[in-house]
Every structure is written in structure tokens, then in C-alpha cells.
């Protein structure tokens, strides 16, 4: 029996996912539990197993495309069975495109309209778009007029000249751009004075680059192929999905929560020493493990630092779920150590190690990246004196941990060489006052400096 394979539901917030790779080919045998395909969500790369056995008959959503959760992406059955006809699931618009306010007429997006004054790609639009599912306006506005009117001869001239016709003011009926408008525009812009090599012009035209936006850089003053290639390389490209999500979340947090920063300097000399002792006994801890534990011990004493606000209400979290920022080549992920207040340093160490490894392998599940109440970002291995972090949305503070550096310090009124580490707490000022942030930061600092505490715990 032919059965559909659907895009799995991945978590609370995931509405769609991109198929990165099909691990099985059409016609290939699939067993229960085989990895069928790999998907990329806003947060992670995941492998999807097959719950069915049979032969992969048809792939509906090819690699590189996005499909909504629960929509059919493929069919499994026995060879020769009839495959039901299926419409490709319609994607909801990308977030950036979805900014159109309700009620506005959806218009075919002209890249030049959103990309600003930089050089742009252009498309001579067809005057009458054939109705397609993608472009159908909502029923109420089915009569919406075409947005961009240009005569076929004018479009041809613009195309031959390799210029974007959209800025041209049309003099035809209802502003339709005529051939003479294009000719006039070219003259006004000094098109005839442009010097461009034949190959450069062909390349610009085939990439729909507007010649008028190109600048020559060689000594000859001509626009050459390398000028066009540079312009192509500089065209706006969509950010990878993960980057788009990071951009959206960081901007939202930075705009809504007034950030303020408190820095303390921690004398890590004793703890560094103790860590070496532990290592000699075969117990290896990272500095992050100690910081995680110190924070997990401190947060219950400062409930507001472990809370969330929207500026009207506050939600105090009874559990400490610690987010740990892990940097990857393609961006940052924040796996979560749940119930950290109940974990021993050793348990924290095991959990942190496991999550970090999964993060590096791109194998974190959405659940493992959700629900944090406070985040720690450690740049210690990157040799930084001090830095500040942006609050993870849904939290009210984040601790930025810098490198442990050998520094001159005063110890027992004597100048001494000590291992110092700066920590900067970023707080949501709507919820946390300066004094509270300072007390919290110092409470963490004191715990890190208290060797006896770690002797008891570890």
C-alpha cells in the first residue's frame, strides 16, 4: 500500500523545515528505522527516520526546499503501485516577506524595491501575470491591477540595454512605459557614454544586472568582466536560515529589553589550581562547569534574575534551566541544561559535555534547545579581556565570561601575579535594578573564589 511520508512536527515553534538531503533515492529499499532524509530547522540539523518499510516511490519535496510540518514529502510503497497525484504543499511566505500588513495588496516583490540603492538585479515583468497558486491575490481583491506596466517593445529595449526599467516614468495610458520612455531614460542617464566590453555586457545581461549601476575599476575606464563579476558577487544573497533566525531573535531582544551591564573581576587562581588537582586525580572539569554550577547555586537566591518579563507581567521560574552558548561555524546554538540547581558539578560536567558535542555535530533536538531561564556565554578560549552579551529572548539576564588571564593583582595588600577572569552580567533593566545585578554578579564571583566550596562539591 502506498503511504505518504510527512514532515515531522518538531517542536512548539517550528512550522516548517528545509530538506537538506535525501539519504534514500527513489526506487531504493527502505527499512523501518532507516534514515530517510535530513532536515534543517531554525535551530538544528536533524535526521528523520522512516516508520515504514517499503520502497521509496516518489520524492515530493526535493533537496533544498522547505515544507510545512505534517505535509507530505514523499511516498513509500511497493514498486509498481500507483502514486497519488499531489499538489506541492504551499509554503507560507518567508518571514521577511511576511511583513506586508494585513489588507495590503500583495505585490510581486521587486528586489530593487527592498534592496535599497545598491546595485540590483532586475526582471522585466510580464504585463499580465498568468494566474498561479503562488501569486493569486486574496479573493476580495481578485481585480487588483497589474503593478508594473511596460510595453513589449520597451521591455525588449531595456533588456537589450541591460538596464532596470523600474525607475522609468511611463507616459503611456495609466503610466505604461513605452519604447520612447526607455530611449529617453537611456539618453538622460548618459547611456551612450558608457564604455563596456562586449563580454561584460553579455554577462551583465544574463545576470539581469543594471549596467547603469556598474562602475569601472580598471585603468582603462571601461566596464570589464571583472567589474561585472564583482557586482554579481556583491548582490544581496539570502542569509542562511539559521542566521536569519539569530538576526531576528537578537534584534527582538535588543529592541525590547533595555540592556545594562555590570562587570566583575574574579580571582580564579585557587580554582585553577584546584582544577589541576582534580585533573591529577583523573577528574577533568572545564572552567565552564564551575561557572555553571556557581550560577545554578546563586540563581535561586535572586528569583528576578531567573524570570521573564514583557514589561507588564513577570513570570518567576521555579526551576533553573541553564542555556549554554555554543559557537559553530554557521552560527550560535544554545543547548539547555535542565534543572541545573539539582545537579552536582559532575552531573553538570557530563550534561554540558554531551550537549556541546551534540551541538557541534548539529544533532541537538529542538527540545534540547528550548526552555532556558538564564544563559552563560563563555569566550574564555578566545583570549578576550571582556565582552558583553545580548539577552536570550525569554530571559532576563545573561552572563558573559571572558578569558582567565595572568594579571597583576593585590592579594593581602601585596602586589601579586594572579589568574583573573572578567564576567559581565547583562540584565533586562525593566526587571533588574543595578544593585541587584551587582549583588548577583558578586555572589557568583564569591562562589568561584571559594576553594573550600569546590572541595566539598567536587
Amino acid at each position, binding site marked *: 500500500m502506498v503511504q505518504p511520508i510527512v514532515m515531522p512536527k518538531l517542536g512548539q515553534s517550528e512550522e516548517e523545515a528545509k530538506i537538506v538531503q535525501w539519504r534514500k533515492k527513489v526506487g531504493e529499499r527502505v527499512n523501518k528505522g532507516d534514515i530517510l532524509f535530513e532536515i534543517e530547522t531554525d535551530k538544528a540539523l536533524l535526521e528523520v527516520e522512516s516508520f515504514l518499510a517499503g520502497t521509496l516511490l516518489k520524492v515530493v519535496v526535493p533537496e533544498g526546499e522547505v515544507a510545512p510540518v505534517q505535509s507530505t514529502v514523499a511516498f513509500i510503497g511497493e514498486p509498481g503501485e500507483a502514486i497519488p497525484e499531489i499538489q506541492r504543499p504551499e509554503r507560507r511566505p518567508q518571514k521577511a516577506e511576511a511583513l506586508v500588513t494585513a489588507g495590503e495588496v500583495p505585490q510581486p516583490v521587486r528586489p530593487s524595491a527592498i534592496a535599497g540603492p545598491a546595485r540590483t538585479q532586475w526582471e522585466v515583468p510580464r504585463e499580465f501575470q498568468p494566474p498561479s497558486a503562488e501569486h493569486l491575490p486574496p479573493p476580495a481583491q481578485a481585480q487588483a491591477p497589474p503593478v508594473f506596466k511596460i510595453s513589449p517593445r520597451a521591455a525588449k529595449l531595456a533588456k537589450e540595454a541591460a538596464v532596470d526599467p523600474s525607475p522609468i516614468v511611463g507616459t503611456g495610458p495609466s503610466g505604461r512605459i513605452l519604447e520612447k520612455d526607455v530611449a529617453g531614460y537611456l539618453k538622460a542617464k548618459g547611456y551612450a557614454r558608457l564604455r563596456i*566590453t*562586449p*563580454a*561584460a555586457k*553579455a*554577462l551583465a545581461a*544574463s545576470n539581469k544586472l543594471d549596467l547603469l549601476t556598474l562602475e569601472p575599476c*580598471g*585603468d582603462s575606464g571601461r566596464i570589464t568582466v571583472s567589474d561585472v563579476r564583482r557586482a554579481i558577487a556583491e548582490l544581496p544573497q539570502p542569509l542562511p536560515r539559521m542566521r536569519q533566525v539569530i538576526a531576528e531573535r537578537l534584534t527582538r531582544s535588543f529592541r525590547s529589553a533595555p540592556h545594562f551591564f555590570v562587570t566583575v573581576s574574579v580571582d580564579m587562581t585557587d580554582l585553577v589550581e584546584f582544577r589541576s588537582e582534580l585533573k591529577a586525580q583523573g577528574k577533568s572539569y572545564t572552567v565552564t562547569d564551575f561557572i555553571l554550577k556557581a550560577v545554578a547555586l546563586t540563581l535561586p537566591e535572586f528569583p528576578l534574575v531567573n524570570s521573564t518579563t514583557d514589561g507588564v507581567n513577570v513570570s518567576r521560574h521555579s526551576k533553573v534551566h541553564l542555556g549554554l552558548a555554543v559557537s559553530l561555524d554557521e552560527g550560535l546554538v544554545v543547548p539547555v541544561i535542565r534543572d541545573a540547581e539539582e545537579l552536582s558539578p559532575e552531573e553538570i560536567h557530563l550534561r554540558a559535555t554531551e550537549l556541546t558535542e551534540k551541538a557541534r555535530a548539529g544533532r541537538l533536538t529542538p527540545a534540547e534547545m528550548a526552555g532556558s531561564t538564564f544563559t552563560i556565554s563563555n569566550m574564555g578560549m578566545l583570549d578576550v579581556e571582556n565582552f558583553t552579551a545580548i539577552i536570550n529572548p525569554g530571559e532576563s539576564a545573561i552572563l558573559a565570561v571572558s578569558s582567565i588571564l595572568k594579571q597583576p593583582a593585590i592579594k593581602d595588600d601585596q602586589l601579586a601575579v594572579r589568574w583573573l577572569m572578567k564576567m559581565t552580567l547583562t540584565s533586562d533593566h525593566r526587571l533588574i535594578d543595578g544593585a541587584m545585578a551587582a549583588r548577583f554578579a558578586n555572589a557568583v564571583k564569591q562562589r568561584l573564589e571559594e576553594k573550600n566550596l569546590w572541595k566539598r562539591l567536587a
Partner: protein
Amino acid sequence: METFGVVVIGAGPGGYPAAIRAAQLGASVALVEKEELGGACLNWGCIPTKTLIASSSLYAQMKSAPAMGLRVEGASFDYAALAARKDKVVRSLRDGLKQLMAANKIKVFKGTASFESRNRLVVEAQSSGSSSVEIGAERTIIATGANSSIPDFLPRHERVIESRSFLGLQSLPASILILGGGVIGCEFACLLAQLDVRVTVVELLDDILWTLDADVRRVVRQHMEKNLGIRILTGTTLENIAADSARVRAAAGQEKLEAEVLLAALGRKPSLEGLKLANAGLCASAKGFIEVDEYGRTEVATVYAVGDVTGGVQLAHAATSQGLVAAENACTRRLRKNEAVVPNCIFTSPEVATVGLSEEEAQKKGSEIKTGKYMFGALGKALANGHPVGFVKWLADASTDQLLGAQAVGAHATELIAEAATALRAELTAAELAHTIHCHPTLSEAWMEAAHALRDEPIHSAPRKKK
């Protein structure tokens, strides 16, 4: 101490044009040369070999005169006279250069230059009579070139020579063993075979002229073997090399080879001897070259380098272009980059010339290309000339039609390549080249026909078979 705006070290095809351009731009210029004006190119390379080749190929034509309906009886040659003509041509060009230097008010120092610091040089005179001079240099252009050398594994013997000493010979050997099937080796092989010398070429790689596309190599190799009677052994090393007063003996694999002379044609080494680069704050790369950026600048702000010594394309005309660019960059504020389109000529029989991308390079880069070829065998003028061997070939970008490379093999290929170089530098498309009217009947028509063929619109050749 006399101080100059620009000091050029080396008066070869890279150095002396740099000196002229710098002088044109108003700089006070010194040119330091330890041997002769014109460098290796004029004195021991391009010019003397091409002078000999002109004689040898005319002699070869005389021998094939009956095919043209001519009768030439008792054709022979006197190598000493050939060599004297070569020396005369070289001398006349060298005298011309001397006058050019004077006309441009360039002060020529004879001797070996070495850096004292980045702005101070010492010119050590070679003859014992004169003393060394110290000169100041606001900018320095290093154009010391490269030398052909005899590698260490060859015995030091008067019968084992490299190209420069070969050109000093006053008589020809009856047989020669050429080690190296590159450009120099093959040019000498053709020249000598045309002068009735028994020639054997031994090349380590799988074919001679390895950097050329296979179809071009095939034409040259076939002509060298079949028409010139040259023995070509490829994919083999030359071992057990020994020379005595009469012969040089060696083994290539199982086979024993012997000849009167062994010519080593195994590439050239950059000449940095005596320069004392370290005093200027410079050091040579691992391979012994002076590294420069695309503006000809070294790591030291006031020092430029051009030509063979930089390890780029080892060609006289490339050095000249780089010399002009370096002089302009040293004397003006507007920076110019070195030219990227460098044509390459090989004076074998038949001649080869290339510019831009080869098919094999395009394949390696994974570029989508189209090619168009036209055989001289189908061209009126080539048949009229009695030179039906060879072809021209274009490579163009499959999507934009831009001409990316050209190759010509056949008579006058080295003259024909200029059109292709112009087309590449002007970034012409195959369509524009095809639509350019070419004179009939000429050899250059082949370019137009090949451009038509590239666009699958061949006029004087059969259309490509549909796959």
C-alpha cells in the same frame, strides 16, 4: 653619491623598457647591467635563436622547393656564416638600445649591483681597472631575469652544454641529445633537425610541450617526428650519462643513446647572485624568486620586481609589460595592475601560439566552455602557401560567449596570435569576432571561421555532428 629617482637592475626586456618609461615620466634613471644591454633575450635567447631559425626554415623550404614547382639545386649551408649573421643581428639591436638609452638620458652603469640598504646600491665593476660606485635610489626595479643552468646530475664536460653556450658554437655537431622536451628543447630540436643534425629528445613527462592541449601537441609532435625525423622519447629519464672527448653516452630505459653533444634544456633559474637582497629587507621565496603583488611591488615599499626573477610567466614580452607597469607605479600615483592576458609563442616547426585559457585548464577549473576549431587544411591561403598543417581554436564561455582562450598551431601561428590576444583583452564575444570581416585570402580568416564554428554556424566547414 649620485642619487636617482629610479634605479633599474638588469637591462633585459623587463629592465630597459622600465628605464625608458621611468625616464619618460620625468624620473632621473640609472640602469645597471653586468653583461650586455638587452639581457638574455637579445643576446642569448629569443633573438639569436630566431635568427638561426629564420635561416634553418628557409633552408628547409629550399629542400622542399620541388613541391612548390621550384627547382633548387645544390642547396647547402655554412653554419659559421649563419652564426655570423646571428651575431650581426644581435649587435645591431644592441647598438640601437645603446642609442635609445642615451636619447632618454638614462645613465647606464656596467657592473653587478648589490643593495647596501633599501635606498643605497653599490655597483661593483667587473673589470679590474675600474672601482665600485655607490648610488642612491629612491625607487628600485629589480629585473635581473633568469639563467639557463646545467643541473648537478649532469657531468661537467665541454660536450654537455646549455642553450647559451650552444649559441657560442661555431660549427654544428652531427648528432645531438636534447634533455628536456619543453619549449627551449623543442625549438632547438626543430632548428637543428632542419640543419640536418640527427636529433633525439628525451622528456621525463608523458609528452613534449606538456602545457599545451593534446590536439596541439599531437600536430607538433607528428611533424617533428615524421617530417623532421626527430626521435622523441617521452616518459623516460636519462641515466648513466658519461662524456668523453668524442661522444656523450647515456641510457634511456633499456636503450643506449649517444651523440656528439648533450644539450640540457631543463628550465631556468632566477638570477639573484650578488644582489644582497637582505640589505634591502627582502628575501627570496623558497624557490628563489622575488615575490611581487599584481602591481609589481615587493614587500619593501620602494622596491619593485619584474620578469623572470618574479617567477611568473617566463616570457620576454610579459617582462616588458611588467617593466612598464612597475615604472609607472614607481613614478606616478595612479596604480596600474600587471596585464593578465599574456600570449605565448613557440618557434617550433610548425609554430605554436596560445593565449588565455587552454581546454585542459578550463576542464580543471570546471568552467563551462564551448570550443570552435578551423583546420588550415581547409583554408585557401594556407593551401596556396603550401602549409596545410595545423589549426586555430577558440575557447569561449558557454553562457556569455566571451572568448577565453585561443590556440594556433601551424605556419605563422606566432604572428596570428596577436589578433586573439587583442580580442581577449577587449573581452570580445565569439559573435563579435565571427562578425568581424577578415581579408580573403589570408591565414587570419581561420579565426573568423573558428568563431563561426564555435557558435555552431560554420561556413567553410561541416557542421558539428549532433550528439
